[in-house]
């Protein structure tokens, strides 16, 4: 009990330190999602804490993802006007994006000869972590590995998104936001906000819609990928 409590405190402290470092440096590679786990893992190893003991405390924090997902109702409600106005564009581009995300992850994973449990863990990588982890568990992947893949996807998207926007001459603000939110979930949304508020709104919307569509399509597409 005491160990679990101390683990929670340790996690929060390393997160606060990591956030501070990110704010000061502004380097995407020093994202709190990279620095905090590194700090924390070093502490755990140095103190000789067993991972299963750590997880008893850590699970309390992971559980907070559930109300966070419920909280997505707020941006969805706030941007409902945007959603309604551009319904067709959003639905068509997001559906193609979500299907391509699942299929391409699977196809590329086959091409580099990855085992099935790794392949399945890669499939939901383009959506926000709590939902990606749920989908991963549903289709038979390893949720923890999926969480790591989601984080790597976010970092990739942050770097590649702006390059793709320039290279393919994407000019519509809606398209820029949708591309970033679909391709790189929350990380992409934060990048979109740097472009402007309209792009940011489109990206937050894309993040939620992508999560829902992936939730629907993942169980349908998975059997075809495993063929």
């Amino acid at each position, binding site marked *: 009990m005491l160990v679990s409590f101390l683990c929670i405190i340790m*996690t929060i402290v*390393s*997160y606060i330190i990591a956030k501070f470092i990110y704010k000061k440096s502004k380097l995407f590679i020093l994202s*709190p*999602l990279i620095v905090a*786990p590194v700090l*924390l*893992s070093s502490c*755990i190893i140095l103190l000789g804490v067993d*991972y299963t003991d*750590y*997880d008893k*405390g*850590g*699970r309390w*924090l*992971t559980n*907070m993802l*559930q*109300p966070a*997902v*419920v*909280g*997505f*109702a*707020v*941006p969805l*409600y706030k941007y409902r006007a945007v959603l309604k106005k*551009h319904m067709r*564009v959003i639905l*068509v581009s997001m559906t*193609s994006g979500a299907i*391509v*995300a699942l299929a391409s992850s699977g196809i*590329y994973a086959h091409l580099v000869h*990855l085992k099935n449990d*790794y392949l399945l863990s890669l499939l939901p990588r*383009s959506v926000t*972590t709590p*939902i990606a982890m*749920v989908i991963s568990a*549903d289709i038979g992947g*390893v949720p*923890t*590995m999926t*969480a790591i893949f989601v984080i*790597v996807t976010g970092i*990739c*998207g942050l770097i*590649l998104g702006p390059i*793709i926007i320039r290279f*393919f001459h*994407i000019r*519509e603000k809606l*398209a820029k936001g*949708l*591309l970033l939110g*679909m*391709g790189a979930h929350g990380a992409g949304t934060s990048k979109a906000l740097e472009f402007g508020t309209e792009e940011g709104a489109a990206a937050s919307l894309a993040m939620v819609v992508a999560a829902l569509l992936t939730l629907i399509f993942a*169980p349908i597409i998975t059997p075809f990928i495993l063929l």
Partner: protein
Amino acid sequence: MIKVFKIVIQVAVLYFFAIIGNLLSLLLHLPISGSIIGMFIVFALLYFKILPISKIEMGASFLLAEMLLFFVPSAVGILQYKEAIFNYGTQFLLVICLSTITVMIVTGIVAERFSRQKERYR
């Protein structure tokens, strides 16, 4: 201090809806996760003005802003998969990069084409 108190209460409200969602998912054998069901319930309550947005906005913004914290324990879980990352790291990175590029190009081009088409017809 009042702000902290408000956030705690609002987070509890959101958690309550997640629990309801989990119960519904379990009882009705739905393939959707409970938190997503909870999200739809809250969205419907907001939409039909049953639940005023002021009652949950602070809590929701807090959770979404600090969401990275809740991923930290899972990321520490990488310790369990040291070998996999060591052996397949390059493959994982390759798949993720290529797939992210593909997804972004497809989504961006489809959205761009469609929104321009719409303008032309107007």
